[in-house]
């Protein structure tokens, strides 16, 4: 949050790099009973370490902040989510309808959001010039040097583009 609030007005956009994907809820026998679309900026196991349909409304504060005394994110700024499957539409157990966390972030922030349907991995090359289709095509371990790129799973030379999400009402 401080990255958003202490660096002045953001007119262009916000980039998220981190975990995302399906959160599975299980019954006592270990069977999957439902799936939730999440971003997981924290690695903890508590609910508030994730952004889900249940708490995404907290991001509505972006609108108040822009209109209020402390301008943070301009109305034309977009949000790029670089995390696995954040744009994948699923039947969300918390929302109880089909959606993705990227769509929900767009709805609550009233900003455009870009996110991938696919999983992502770190690569030595960017998505346009990459030679791998997934993490198995990269050195293991990756070198502890830059540049590194977070790119979507998909054929080398034909990586999927991020999907665009615009604000909707649920």
């Amino acid at each position, binding site marked *: 949050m401080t990255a958003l609030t202490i660096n002045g007005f953001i007119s262009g956009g916000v980039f998220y790099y981190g*975990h*995302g*994907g*399906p*959160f*599975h*809820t*299980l*019954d*006592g*026998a*270990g069977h*999957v*009973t*439902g*799936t939730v679309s*999440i971003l*997981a900026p924290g690695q*903890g*196991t*508590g*609910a*508030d*370490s*994730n952004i889900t349909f*249940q708490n995404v409304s907290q991001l509505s504060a972006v609108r108040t902040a822009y209109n209020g005394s402390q301008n943070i994110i301009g109305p034309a700024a977009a949000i790029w989510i670089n995390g*696995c499957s954040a744009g994948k539409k699923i039947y969300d157990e*918390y929302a109880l309808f089909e959606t993705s966390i990227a769509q929900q972030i767009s709805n609550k922030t009233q900003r455009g959001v870009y996110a991938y349907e696919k999983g992502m991995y770190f690569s030595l090359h960017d998505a346009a010039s990459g030679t791998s289709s997934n993490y198995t095509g990269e050195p293991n371990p990756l070198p502890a040097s830059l540049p590194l790129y977070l790119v979507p799973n998909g054929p080398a030379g034909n990586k999927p583009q991020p999907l665009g999400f615009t604000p909707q009402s649920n």
Partner: protein
Amino acid sequence: MRRYLRSILILTLVVTIAWAQETHSTRDFTPTQLIDQFWKLATQGDLLTANGWERARGFYSHSTPPPVSKSIDVVSNVWGPASQKSLDGEIAVVVIGFDDAGHIDENLKYIAPKETGAVKTGRLYHLVFAPTKFETYKSDGKNLVVDKTIVGPKAWQIEDKPGAPFTTVNSAIRYVLEMRKKSNDPNVIRNADTTIEKLLRLN
């Protein structure tokens, strides 16, 4: 006569303390506190022993006999805290986050968790706010059988059927060490050694 009175007094005290522990253990908990407390028992390894299972019974709204199978599920040392998914009057749904750390079968062989594609997982619990019940027992000459079911004040209780007994990685290591010590089967002992090595790599 004094010895008889003293026995009655002691018995009364024991029953009172037992009842107080029973009611204190779950009566005042919110739904999320109840599940956090249940997972604390699991972390201590209580779901792996008959005595521990007896303590866990108070968390359920229905009778839960100890599991017959000796296989156990293993979860990450770090879990929770529980969060409330929904609350509708006297019905609540709670989710507690954890990482699946695998399974140990009856022969103490470790089985790694399946790849599910999930970035995180949580266990779902359905709770009901209902009168607590606990049973008193009597002997039928051979076994202890239920004598009476005493109804207590309302408290949040788990409605789901209990799954396989589970514990965290660290308590699973202790469990395997203890079971290994009790076994004379060389296969089981070999499995146990391999399992401990694998568990030590987890957290």
